[in-house]
């Protein structure tokens, strides 16, 4: 279990969470919502809300081998799997430069 709030987002069909303490501001941008964090700006389709606590699991070897991105771990929120990200190393799908290729 990881204490501390998490901001929970949707992007590219996935659900993502980042530690609330990293979030500086949320606003609207050209390609969706812009989330300013201590690690840079992320983009999101939707902000779902905050999760007070998440039980974060290590991502495991299969995910590490088959998904070329880094993350803090995985969790489940209301029956939906969530990828907990490190805002300093966000997945491409959440980066501003990834927004142009976002379908």
């Amino acid at each position, binding site marked *: 279990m990881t204490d501390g709030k998490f901001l929970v987002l949707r992007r590219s069909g996935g659900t993502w969470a980042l530690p609330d303490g990293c979030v500086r501001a949320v606003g609207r941008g050209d390609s969706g919502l812009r989330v300013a964090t201590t690690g840079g700006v992320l983009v999101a389709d939707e902000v779902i809300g905050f999760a007070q606590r998440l039980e974060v699991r290590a991502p*495991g*070897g*299969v995910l590490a*081998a*088959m*998904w070329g991105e880094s993350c803090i771990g*995985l969790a*489940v929120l209301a029956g939906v*799997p969530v990828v907990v990200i490190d805002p300093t190393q966000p997945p491409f799908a959440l980066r501003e430069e990834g927004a142009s290729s976002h379908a």
Partner: protein
Amino acid sequence: MEKIAGAVQRCLLVQAGEQECALPLDRVRRVVRALQVHPLPGAAPALLGLAEYGGEPLPVLDLARLLGAPPTGAGATAVTVIVAVGPRGATELVGLAAEAALDIAETPLSALPGNDHAMVVGEVLLAGRPVRVLDLGALGATA
């Protein structure tokens, strides 16, 4: 169930695309209706995404794609086989999306011909049909 001479292992036979596969039964935790999978952008094609199983996040792999087996063309897979992969003592659970769970059978434990893939021990004939026997211990290491 067919009987094979020599050291054998019990396996769950599953249909993965046009390929029939044998999963060592001691690695199989459960077979469930296809879990709802949430996509993971940027993942390898064989990694369908993440699902929730028993309150835990679960990577779900397309078994046919993982093995390079031709798809049936029927589209969606019907079952998810929950298996423990990786070396013993350091296993993790993953879901294998497949068309169907078929039967329980015995396959030889020894090396078999046809091991053309890192996680394929080899191929056997069961009831006249070729079946690829999988090594799920190799999956976590070589996926």
